[in-house]
């Protein structure tokens, strides 16, 4: 509709993509993209990989160069935080003062680092890895650090550990539960990655809680575990997950439950407000309709496309297959579908060779596939799962069975 005003809060993967997709579909109204970070929208995945390692510069980290926003009439405003939503007046209040009216508001506020309430958490040398600013601070520290403690063995902690080891640093990872990436991947995948990191020289302490961080003259000195063990550290990366940025929504009276609650078309209870990406809790058709909040580029961008479609008059329920990737040193993990909650798995390929996939089932139905250096399995698994086809555990485990047969089966 000409003259329609779309305001997007949060200018990262999700927010950027709404703006880009709207213009791609010929949306003719105004698009205002507000981000509280001081830079053009950039990609987060390389922060813990090639950018941290200095292999790519800022130009290639950016989603698009500045001219893109001009050329596509996207009014991108950096360094602007939205302080409140006035639903009755359909306008947002900016932290710098002033208001902005909308016909449709998209909340793409993402998530922020979870900061554990540990004594000493404010010491100099405690680092995080979510934003460009944090990554740049971490890069400087990394060059001079000797002993690194990583709290939390999730994707980001492990990706960082791989880079830090490649720089010859001593790295110990402290993890509360008994395996790496436990929230998201199957046991064999955890075991394989833990062994690979160990072989690269990373040390692990599992089943251990950091209890406090101690320092000298304001600088971190060591991390103390619940059993009293002290781990010397001049750099501590805290990577214990994120908290969704849902306060704007809750203050405006919208439902929040582990994220901003949206319906199958990613709308909040207020039809003029959508929520997408890391901040949104949506009914996921690939998890039997249960509410899910996912943290992945695919999720952020596919959510964005779904909302853009609706705003140009082509509404449809969100049903994209979740997929995810991680690069840890030379090892590549690709996940198709959501494997959490499986009650059975089978391996395809050979774990020893470092190239295998884990097919995860629940009640005999394929939930998802984790592929380690097996991109072909991943690509076909995406097709199979997107189309709602099945591969039996026996077929998956049979190296002679061509997965493409399953992808081509009639529905």
């Amino acid at each position, binding site marked *: 509709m000409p003259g329609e005003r779309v305001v997007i809060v949060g200018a990262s993967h999700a927010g950027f993509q709404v703006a880009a997709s709207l213009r791609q579909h010929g949306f003719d109204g105004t698009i205002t993209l507000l981000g509280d970070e001081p830079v053009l929208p950039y990609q987060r995945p390389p922060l813990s990989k090639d950018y941290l390692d200095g292999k790519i510069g800022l130009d290639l980290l950016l989603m698009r160069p500045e001219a893109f926003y001009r050329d596509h009439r996207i009014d991108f405003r950096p360094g602007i935080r939205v302080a409140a939503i006035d639903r009755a007046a359909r306008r947002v209040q900016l932290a710098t003062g002033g208001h902005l009216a909308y016909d449709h508001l998209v909340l793409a506020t993402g998530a922020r680092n979870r900061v554990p309430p540990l004594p000493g958490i404010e010491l100099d040398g405690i680092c995080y890895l979510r934003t460009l600013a944090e990554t740049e601070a971490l890069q400087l520290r990394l060059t001079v650090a000797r002993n690194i403690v990583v709290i939390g063995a999730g994707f980001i902690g492990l990706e960082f550990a791989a880079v830090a080891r490649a720089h010859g640093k001593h790295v110990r990872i402290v993890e509360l539960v008994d395996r790496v990436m436990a929230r998201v991947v199957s046991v064999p995948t955890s075991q394989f990655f833990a062994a690979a990191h160990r072989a690269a020289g990373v040390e692990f302490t599992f089943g251990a809680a950091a209890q406090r961080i101690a320092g000298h003259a304001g600088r971190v000195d060591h991390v103390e575990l619940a059993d009293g063990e002290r781990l010397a550290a001049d750099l501590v990366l805290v990577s214990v997950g994120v908290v969704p940025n849902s306060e704007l929504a809750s203050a405006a009276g919208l439902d929040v439950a582990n994220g901003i609650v949206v319906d199958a078309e990613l709308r909040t209870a207020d039809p003029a407000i959508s929520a997408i990406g890391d901040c949104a809790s949506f009914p996921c058709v690939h998890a039997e309709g249960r509410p899910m909040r996912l943290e992945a580029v695919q999720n952020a961008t596919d959510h964005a496309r779904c909302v853009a479609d609706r705003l140009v008059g082509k509404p449809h329920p969100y049903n994209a297959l979740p997929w995810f990737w991680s690069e840890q040193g030379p090892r590549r993990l690709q996940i198709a579908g959501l494997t959490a909650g499986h009650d059975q798995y089978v391996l395809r390929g050979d774990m020893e060779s470092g190239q295998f996939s884990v097919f995860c089932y629940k009640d005999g139905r394929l939930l998802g596939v984790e592929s380690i250096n097996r991109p*072909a399995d*991943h690509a076909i698994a995406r097709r199979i799962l997107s189309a709602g086809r099945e591969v039996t555990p026996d077929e998956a485990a049979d190296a002679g069975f061509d997965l493409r047969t399953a992808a081509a089966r009639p529905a």
Partner: protein
Amino acid sequence: MPRVTYIDIAGNEKTLDIPVGTSVMQAAVLNGVDGIVAECGGSCMCATCHVYVRDDQLAMTPPMAEDEDAMLEGTASPRRPNSRLSCQLVVSPEMDGLVVYTPETQT
């Protein structure tokens, strides 16, 4: 600098001078060629940087690694014999004059 021409489905052409060592995907993103999405930033993980290389120019392009071949199975527009992932096409002097066609859709 080697020159690469991008042609979209509507026939719009754009020719870029690309520094050796930059990928066909990176040059497109940096210079506003819209038909390439590149959701994974060039990690060969997403298949949204799909292009068709002009049929008679396939020999100019670097050989395809197993990863790329595998991920091409998951493109949104049909895979053809001249399909490549542009993030894997790192520009070299031999690629001067290359023409790539962006597909109807990447997602």
